[in-house]
């Protein structure tokens, strides 16, 4: 919190550099397209890749700084934010890497595509690096508005248009809830910073008669709705299958991985602030988690379209992630259990890699402006494109939680956390669900590996080096994090001396 309202807070350029880097890359990409309209997009792709690499370097340059809030409390510079920013940059990197061939085959205009992907990433990076609800909302909107456009980028295609409109209307609707919720929290606490929630709760004894409980709780409920929409939790998930289905496949991959990472990271920040109230919202989230896992998996079973299967699978994975978040939050209130955010990050990374990778493989069916995403359209992919098909096996194995993949270790970690906080039944629900999910992942595997193409085989796009590299990176990551769990967890966890103080509060507010 700032000293007075007259002195502007000092600008911490260092912390801001990654965000500036990605934004500037987007601007440069747009300028390149302006200079050389409708020509090859190789220059843009290289510019984006280099820009993202540089931004990642900027994140690492901040790596050893102590965790602190800058910009008068608007920006949180800590390991959690840095790691999630890196994840988002990585997601954008891989999306840019594999979309070139897809955009060409699908005849999607690429001039808008790359800058929008980058700016959407910027929105996500803002979301994960702030503990101020208003800035969080701003980041969310930057993320979403770019995605609305991206979803409808194939403007001649009815499905793409429909996806964009649905996403836009429902997204704006959810934003309304979130914003109203923020307004109520602001009303109750006088600040939009998440710590305000906890501080107000701490004062409940001294303010018995004029304690604005109801306003605060209503606000938290409404903000939860906003998060639940973004993270695709049941019953706020309904846009997900349609939008994932209708949007261009590379956008779907980016949306599924990027916006979920941002949403869950921001959710953790928010819940950290509201930690003292966890007895109130934990039951809500638990119900949402159970619903999400079951609905996602059950409906995925009866789908025939590979993109929809993966859309429902991503809903189910949101449920698993929510279990991890719940375990993390619950452990903060327990004295004898210590659970860091490591599990959530680990699963977000695994989820991001397997989702992006599998959508990259799915994008191979686009050819000559058309795209078939039914399971039948993937028959014989094994023959045409052995490497992506082999990587797809890894992605599916990981999504299904087969041992020796990141997905398995991630589920194991969540399982362990859930048991540690005495929620064995929730862990069992997760286990049962991951068994159900094997069936539909197997269908994709069978479609790709076992079954022969029909009489009129789908024509697959040629595998371009970008896609090859993207699949390879994702596949390698999934195996690598499964083997090197411990180094990875150490790498992402906060350095001991600057561990995030979860309920950090200014010294004068320390309440008896």
């Amino acid at each position, binding site marked *: *919190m*700032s000293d*007075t*309202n007259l002195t502007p807070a000092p600008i911490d350029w260092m912390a801001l550099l990654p965000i500036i880097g990605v934004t500037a890359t987007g601007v440069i990409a747009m300028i390149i397209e302006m200079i050389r309209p409708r020509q090859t997009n190789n220059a843009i792709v290289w510019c984006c890749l280099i820009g993202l690499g540089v931004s990642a370097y900027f994140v690492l340059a901040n790596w050893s700084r102590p965790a602190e809030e800058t910009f008068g409390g608007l920006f949180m510079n800590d390991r959690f934010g840095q790691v999630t920013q890196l994840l988002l940059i990585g997601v954008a990197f891989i999306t840019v890497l594999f979309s070139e061939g897809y955009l060409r085959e699908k005849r999607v205009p690429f001039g808008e595509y790359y800058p929008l992907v980058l700016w959407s990433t910027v929105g996500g990076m803002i979301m994960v690096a702030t503990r101020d609800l*208003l800035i969080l*909302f*701003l980041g969310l*909107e930057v993320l979403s*508005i770019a995605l*609305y*456009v991206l979803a*409808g980028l194939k*403007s*001649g295609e*009815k*499905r793409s*248009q*429909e*996806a*964009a*409109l*649905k996403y*836009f*209307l429902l997204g*704006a*609707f959810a*934003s*309304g*809830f979130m*914003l*109203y919720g*923020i*307004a*109520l929290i*602001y*009303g109750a*606490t*006088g*600040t*939009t910073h998440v710590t*305000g929630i906890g*501080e*107000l709760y701490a*004062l409940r004894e001294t*303010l018995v008669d*004029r*304690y*604005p409980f109801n306003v605060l709780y209503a606000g938290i409920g409404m903000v939860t709705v906003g998060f639940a929409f973004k993270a695709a939790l049941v019953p706020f998930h309904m846009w997900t*299958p*349609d*939008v994932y*289905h*209708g949007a261009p496949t590379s956008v779907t991959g980016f949306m599924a991985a990027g916006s979920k990472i941002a949403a869950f990271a921001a959710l953790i920040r928010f819940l950290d602030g509201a930690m003292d109230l966890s007895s109130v919202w934990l039951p809500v989230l638990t119900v949402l988690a159970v619903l999400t896992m079951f609905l996602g998996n059950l409906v995925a079973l009866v*789908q025939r379209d590979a993109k*929809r299967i993966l859309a429902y699978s991503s809903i189910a994975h949101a449920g698993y992630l929510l279990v991890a978040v719940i375990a993390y939050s619950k452990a903060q209130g327990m004295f004898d259990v210590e659970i860091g955010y490591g599990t959530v990050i680990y699963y977000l990374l695994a989820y991001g890699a397997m989702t992006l990778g599998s959508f990259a493989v799915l994008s191979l069916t686009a050819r000559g402006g058309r795209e078939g995403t039914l399971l039948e359209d993937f028959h014989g992919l094994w023959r045409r494109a052995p490497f992506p098909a082999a990587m797809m096996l890894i992605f599916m194995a990981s999504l299904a939680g087969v041992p020796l993949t990141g997905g398995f270790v991630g589920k194991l970690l969540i399982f362990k956390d859930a048991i540690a906080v005495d929620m064995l039944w929730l862990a069992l629900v997760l286990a049962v669900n991951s068994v159900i999910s094997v069936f539909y992942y197997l269908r994709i595997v069978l479609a790709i590996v076992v079954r022969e193409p029909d009489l009129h085989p789908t024509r697959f796009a040629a595998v371009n080096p970008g896609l090859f590299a993207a699949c390879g990176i994702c596949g390698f990551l999934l195996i690598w994090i499964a083997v090197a769990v411990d180094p990875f967890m150490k790498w992402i966890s906060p350095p001991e001396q600057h561990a995030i103080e979860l309920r950090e509060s*200014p010294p*004068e*507010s320390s309440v008896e």
Partner: protein
Amino acid sequence: MEGIPLAAYLSLGAVMFAIGALGVVIRRNPIVIFMCIELMLNAANLTFLAFARYHETPLSRIIDPNDTYMTGQMAVIFVMAVAAAEVAIGLGIIMAIFRSREEIDVDKLNLLRG
């Protein structure tokens, strides 16, 4: 203005929000739906402003009251900017659909389902 209690503004905001939310569910023209969403955003704006003007936070020992006022007013500017961006995008999407279909009834947009 002093004569009107805070509760009046909050109630007006709540009613606007509810009307907006119901409108989203009831109306079939995407432009009208979007107007209803604008109504919801403006309800939030009104709430922000009312709180900023009236409210004395119980946390005033911790938080500078000036900050409180400023946050609410700043929020409104933010939201207006965001809403403007949404209008631009939303109308663009709706226009694109209108051009290819000649009608914009959201109930006729259900190619994607199941």
